[in-house]
Structures are given as C-alpha cells and as structure tokens.
C-alpha cells in the first residue's frame, strides 16, 4: 500500500477516565481533525492534558468511548457502528516515550519484528534483511545490526525505535515525546533529523510534545490541548501570532498579561481600545472576535516592549505604561527586567546596550499590533471555530 495517499480522519473521538466518585478524571474530550497525507501534526499541551490518551486511541491501545477514526478508506473505529480494527492489524508505526526497545533482541531483530509477525506478507528472509537494512540506513544506523539493543546510547535507541516504526511502511506514524529522554544538545540535533526523515518518507505523522519550541519548529499543524480539550488548532504561525486565548498565548512562550475590559464587541482581526483594571487605556489588536461582556487579557511578549527613561518622548506613538524597575538580570544576549506597573510585575527583555538601575522610573513602550487582546479563559466558541 502506498503511504503517500492516506488521509487520516478523526471525528469526535473521545476517551474519558472516571474517578471512583464518578467525576471525569482525565482523558480527552471529543477531538476532530483531518490530516492530508504527509502532514506533520503536533499535539501540544501541559503534562496530563490527554496527549498520550489521544495517541493511544489512534494506535488502538485504548478503546475510545465515542467517535470515528479512519485512515485512507479503512475505518479503524466507529463508535456508532461498533467497528473496531484490532491494533495489530492497523499498520501504524509508533515510537514510544520509553522507546520500548526489546532488550533480549539485537538491533536487527528489533527492527525485523514487525515484518516477522506479519505472516500474511509472506516475506522471505532476504526481503526482510533488505527492508531492515533500508530502514536502518534511513535512520543512519547501518552497520549496527548485530549490536545488542541495550548497548546503544539514548539517541541510537531512539533511531532504532524509529526504524522499527517505519520498516513496514505504515500509513501513519505516531511519536510520543520521542525526544524527552535526550539531553538538550542531542534533542536539537534529533529534532532536525526527525523532521528531515519525515519529509523524506512523506509519512503522515502525529507528534506529541509539551515543548512549544519543538512544536513550532517541526509542525505543519499544531493542536494545543488543555485539560482534555483542544484550545486551538492551526499552523505554528497562527498559534503563535494569533492565539485563541490567554492559555494558548501563555503556553506558546513567556508573555505578560494585564486584565482589561471592553466597551464594545470586536470582530476578528480588528483594532480597538480596552480599559485596564488599573484605569489606563491601551490600543490592542484582536485576532479573534470577542464580545463586550468578555473578560480580556492583554498579552505583550517581553521582547516587544521597549524601555525608555520616564517621560521621554515617543515618536512612534503606540502604547505607553509607566513603572519602576524592580530587578534586572544580565543574560548575555539580553538583559531581563522586572518592572512594577501598578500592582503588576511586567517582564521586559532588552538589548543590553542601555541599562536601567533598580528603582528608576521607566516608560514601557509597545506597538498596538503586538499587543493582543485575548479572551481571559477558554471559550468553546473560539475553540470550535478554529
């Protein structure tokens, strides 16, 4: 079968765990998405939000409560019709968080396993050898065939796991935090490697991580999940620049929030004015529609704010707040300031050319188009629209 032409359709798939007291105790609320062949799709969210649960439902390791799941023309699961393709017949490749390399087999046997257990393929020993060699070459482990799997480094184990997942040309590749066990340097390296491999094989891939940098760099589409619910689904740029709400903005990278109110409804992609709880007004950009009654969190990333001595003029116009420097820290390429504005502490990153002492009064200047007006908490309307 040709792995290039399989569209994955996930429709309202859900799996909830229940605590003894019959309250929901985790899992994933209904989730839907359709992936074109070759898409690199990332499930991103904090620990315990239901990423692994989703992945296990797709793999067939978990039996979903409701929903539909199909790959290409084959329906794997249909809650209505009661269809269920057993997991060992799904032809899905998966890399586990722990790699799950079998310690009693060599590298070769580990990778050959998916071919050996599928008797219906009737592969000869020679074919198996060729396919394994090809898979190992793809991941850059040619020559390691006879090594015992336990004699490998973390990065090599991860590659073996990957080779094992792709050896029988699956229709879908699932990766559960495959990089989380590696040290920072190796993680960086493997990130590029993985992305390159995925493009080379052209396989639809679902990737689970809680590292937003990883997600941004690798993905075609990101789904941000929080407590079992999809907060936003979109391209990396979309999710980063136009977060659906305060949670997404915060999860995609450090940011400052100020609570504010609206005076009128705002359509999507519009500019408008909000009144901060402290009384000042700010010009902000609304990436998504909000209603007059919604609580607003104004989000400014630390690197879009410019510091200036209090009272200096502001030729570009835009927003201005005034505060007192509480502390500063030199971090090499930037200098990090904590500035107290009203009762709030605002983080600011500055190029370290100018320095402001603690206790000095400063103006914080930032452009309206980089000042986002977001829903303070999740709103089902926005999530569904994405």
């Amino acid at each position, binding site marked *: 079968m040709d792995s290039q032409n399989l569209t994955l359709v996930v429709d309202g798939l859900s799996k909830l765990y229940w605590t003894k007291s019959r309250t*929901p105790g985790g899992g994933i609320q209904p989730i839907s998405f359709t992936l074109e062949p070759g898409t690199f799709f990332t499930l991103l969210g904090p620990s315990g939000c239901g990423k692994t649960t989703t992945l296990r439902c797709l793999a067939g390791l978990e039996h979903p409560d409701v929903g539909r799941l199909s790959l290409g023309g084959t329906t794997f699961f249909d*809650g209505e019709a009661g269809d269920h393709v057993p997991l060992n017949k799904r032809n899905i490749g998966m890399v586990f968080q722990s790699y799950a390399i079998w310690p009693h087999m060599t590298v070769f046997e580990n990778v050959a396993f998916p071919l050996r*257990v599928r008797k219906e393929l009737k592969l000869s020993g020679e074919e198996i050898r060729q396919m394994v060699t090809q898979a190992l070459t793809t991941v850059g482990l040619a020559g390691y065939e006879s090594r015992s799997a336990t004699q490998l480094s973390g990065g090599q184990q991860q590659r073996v796991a990957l080779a094992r997942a792709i050896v029988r040309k699956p229709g879908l590749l699932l990766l559960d935090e495959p990089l989380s066990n590696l040290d920072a340097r190796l993680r960086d390296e493997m990130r590029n490697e993985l992305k390159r491999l995925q493009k080379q094989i052209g396989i639809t891939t679902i990737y689970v991580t809680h590292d937003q940098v990883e997600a941004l760099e690798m993905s075609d589409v990101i789904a941000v999940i929080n407590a079992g619910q999809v907060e936003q689904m979109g391209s990396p740029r979309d999710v980063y620049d136009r977060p659906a709400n305060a949670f997404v903005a915060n999860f995609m990278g450090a940011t400052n929030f100020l609570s504010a109110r609206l005076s009128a409804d705002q359509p999507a992609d519009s500019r408008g004015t909000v009144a901060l709880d402290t009384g000042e007004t700010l010009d902000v950009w609304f990436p998504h529609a909000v209603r007059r009654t919604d609580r607003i969190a104004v989000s400014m990333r630390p690197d879009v704010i410019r510091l200036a001595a209090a009272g200096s003029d502001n030729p570009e116009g835009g927003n201005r707040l005034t505060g007192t420097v509480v502390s500063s820290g030199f971090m090499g390429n930037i200098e990090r300031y904590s500035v107290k504005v009203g009762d709030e502490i605002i983080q600011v990153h500055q190029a370290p050319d100018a320095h402001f002492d603690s206790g000095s009064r400063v103006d914080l200047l930032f452009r309206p188009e980089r000042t986002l007006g977001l829903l303070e908490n999740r709103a089902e309307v926005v999530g569904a629209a994405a």
Partner: protein
Amino acid sequence: MHPPPARARRRRPRAFRASVPSLIMTAILCLLVLPPLVMLFRTSLVNYEDASAPYSLINYVKLIEDPLLYISTFNSVFFAAGATVVSLLIGATVAWIVERTNAPFKWLAYVTTIVSLGTPAILYVSAWIFLLGRAGPVNQLWKEITGSFQPLVNVYSIPGMMLVEGLLWVPLVFLLCGATFKRQNADLEEAARMSGGSVFDTVWRVSLPLAKPALYGLAIFIFIRNIEAFDVPVLLGTPGGIKLLTSDIYLSMTRVPPDLGHSSAFAIVMILFVSALLYLYGRVSANADRFASVTGKGFRPRPFDLGRYRWIGGFVIILNFLLVLALPVLAVLWNSVTPFVRGFSLKAFSTLTLENYVHVLTDSYYLQLALNTVFVAAISATVAIAVTAVAAWLSVRKWPASGPLNQLASLPIIFPGIVLGVAMIQLALRTPFGLYGSIWLIAIAFIIRYLPYGMRYAQPAVMQIHRELEEAANVSGASQPGTFRRIVLPLTAPALLAGWLFIFLVAAKELSIAVLLAGSRSKTVAVAMFDQWTNGQAGEVAALGIIWTIAMSCCAALMMALSRNDMKSQGTL
C-alpha cells in the same frame, strides 16, 4: 467542569472475547485449587461411626471437647514461636553481616545456604538426633568432662525441637533478610555515623528500625511455616510424647482404620488458624515497603566498616556454617560410613566402610526412588510455573476477568502440607482411575501446593517488564499470544527458571504431603528416608542423603546464580 458525554460507557461484545483467556485460566485454577478444600470440608461433616447419619458437626464437637486439641495447639504455637526466634536471630544476624558489612568469609554463608537448600529436612533432623541424642557426641563429651550420668540436652523435648527446627529455617531467613538489607540505602547509615553515632548506635537506631517492618513480616511467615512443620514434630515430638497439630493429623491418618472425619475437622481448624496468620502477614507486609529505601539506577549499597569488630563478624559466619551445615553433614557422613549406629569415637575408625554407598549406588530400588523424585519435582515445577506465568501476565496486565486469578493461585498457601495430603487422599479415593497410590497423585498435590510459589516468582517478573515493550509488539502487528511468546516469555525467562529450580528443590525434599500419598511404587527420596529412618536403617539413609545432597546442591547453586543475575538486571530493564 465538562459534562461527560451521555454514551460514555457502553459494554461491547469485544469485552467478552477478551475475557476468554482469563476465564479459561480461572477454570483451570479452580479445578486445581477448590476440590481439596471442598472435599476436606465435606469429609469433616461426615459421621464415620454412623454412615447413615446426615452431615453434622459431630467431628468438630468431638474435636473441641477433646483436651488434646488445646494441648497440641499450645505445643505447636510454643514450638513454632521458639523455632522462629532461633532462625530469625541467627539468620538475620548473618544476613546483616554478609550484606552490609566488610566481615570476612562471606562466601561461606552462601555455601551454607546453597547446600542447605538442597538437603532434605529429614536428613538434618536425623543428624541432630545423632549429635544431641543420649549417646551422641555432645552428651558423651559432657559426661566425660563432668563425670555426671545425666545427659546435658534432651533432643526429644520442646526446646530441643525448637533448636533443630530453628536451624532448619536459617538458610531461608538468611536469603529473605539478605534481600531486605541489600535494598537498604547506605546513605542513611552513613548519615548516622557522620552525626557521631557509634557502630552499635547506628545499627540499633537506624538499621534495625528501618528493617523492622520487613522483619515482622518475615517472622510471621516463618512462624506459619513452623506451625505447618512436619519432620521435626513427627521425628522428635512423637518419640518424646509431645503432641503437635501436624503430628496429630498424621497419626490419625496412619491409624488403622484412618480417622478421616477427625483429621478433616482437625485440618479445617488448622486452615482457619493459618488463614488468620496469613491475614496478619498480609497486613504487616503491606506496610513493609513503607520504609524500604528506594533504589535507583546504579545504586550500590556500601558495606559498613566494622573496624576491629570485623573478626567477630567472621566468627559469626563460621559459627553459622558449623551449626547449619558442617556439624549435621559431618554427622550424616559419619553415619554413612559406619556399619551400625554408634557414637563418635576413635575406636570406630577401624570399622569404617563404604558398603552403604555401594548398596545405594547399585540397588535399583534407589534408582527408582531418584527417578520418582526427579519426575514429580520436575512435573510439578513445570506445570506450576507454566500456569502461574500465564496467570501472572493476565493479572498484571489487567485483562478483562483476570481479577480472581491472583487470589486463586495464591489460595493453596493456606494448606499446610499434611492437610493437603489428607485432602488429596480423600479425592483420590473417589476418583475411578487408580489415582490412589500413583505418582501422579503426588505430582498433582505438589502442583497445587507450589502454585503460590510460582506466582511469587512470576508476578514480579512480569511487573518488571515495561508495558510499552509489549505495546510496541502489538503495534508492530503481533497478536497477544505472539507478544506473550516473543516478548514476555524471553524477558521473564531468568526469573521463571529460578522459580522452576526453587520449586524443584522444595518439591524434591517435601515430606509431609508425599508421606501420606506415596504408594509402594511411588515413593520419593524423602519418603524413603523417612521410612528407613523409622525402621532403623540409619546408615543407608545417610549414604543416600549425602549423594542426594550433592546432586541437589548443584541445582541450588544454579538457582542462586540465576536469581542474582535477575536482581542485577532489574535496574537495566
């Protein structure tokens, strides 16, 4: 916060298919475990004096009215408690010295344990009867030194029985305690030393309290084993006129005609007693891990520097070696080369002979015994391990309907050996196909008896396999049976093999069940030793014992090697 979807939980037909393996296992286990229990209970309700009478509690009434029950119970408890103290004192001390200090001669402690594991208990008992008997070397020496006519020790007494039984269990206590001490984190002891504590302070205030929950659990476990003990009560208690629970059951079964009702009622009482103790054991050992210092990868306990007390540690190890291994084995060796039982003296050296060995090695009767024993031990070890490996896998992975598997496989632990023997006789008498007196009856009884042991080895072995290793096989396209065969079995193999050897060893020396079930053609080595000993053929027993001990010690050594490897690999899997 989020309302649960209305159709969240729905039973699917899939659930039934997935529960088929567990249901089959449950059926197999029920078939093995329940009949003895039911049969025992039934027989205990039959009035044997009046065959037409309906089921009644008459046997229980007679039992309760008989003061013998209370005497036996008291004796059993007193004996078991004393023996437990003896084995715990010696075993725990030696284990601590070996596992946690830098004392010399540690290897000697392992040799002692390995050889003891392979030696039938009856051999030890006979050796101690010889050593401590009225005309034995100890009493002789005492008489010569003091000129007194009174012997120093009377081995046919409760203290004598305590000593012998206590020494019998030292090797097991050593092994189990060793495992506990090994897990203790040396940092805790070193912290105590850094804070200014002496060696004694540290042991008394830190090491011992840390090991306490585990030691309590072990004490109850050994106590139960001692309550169930058979060899010492029959060989030492009965001649000395001391009645214990197990010897009472044995006597009422070997009386002509056997008193089935009485022994069954007795057996049920004993099962209840043991169950209560096991419940206590469960409660205590559930807490045992509370204190266990968690070990991570690369954790290696550092030995405690005893300083100038090192030689005391070495001395204790040597003493343990002498008491548990050297003295009894020397006594047996001596008996095996003397033509008739006689005390130890220089004069006797001129009469030494290898005749007993020649006899044992050439007589086909002994070959038959050895074959019988190896056969039942191998069959029961194989079946018990095979059944529990599957049951443990189903239950650890929480297959549908696997809930009762663990309990069922562990249930036979409530049967003292002699009680299971009584139950199996009654079952055999009711089965049409000549089971009674055949070797298969013994094999089935052993399988039942050792299921819990198998579970003990199989369950942790499966738990140790990271779940994702199996899931990776499933996702790769392997069916569940394929996953079990290709992933679970190879990974648990070392533990299962160690379990197999352990069951093989205990089955090969088990006496209390076999002594009731063996027919003339289905005797095992332990039963033959028992018969010959009671017939006064001590020399041949001794020769047979020496040869048998050597063979079994090799198995024991293999088992220890496997278990050690297994412990080592736990960190890396």
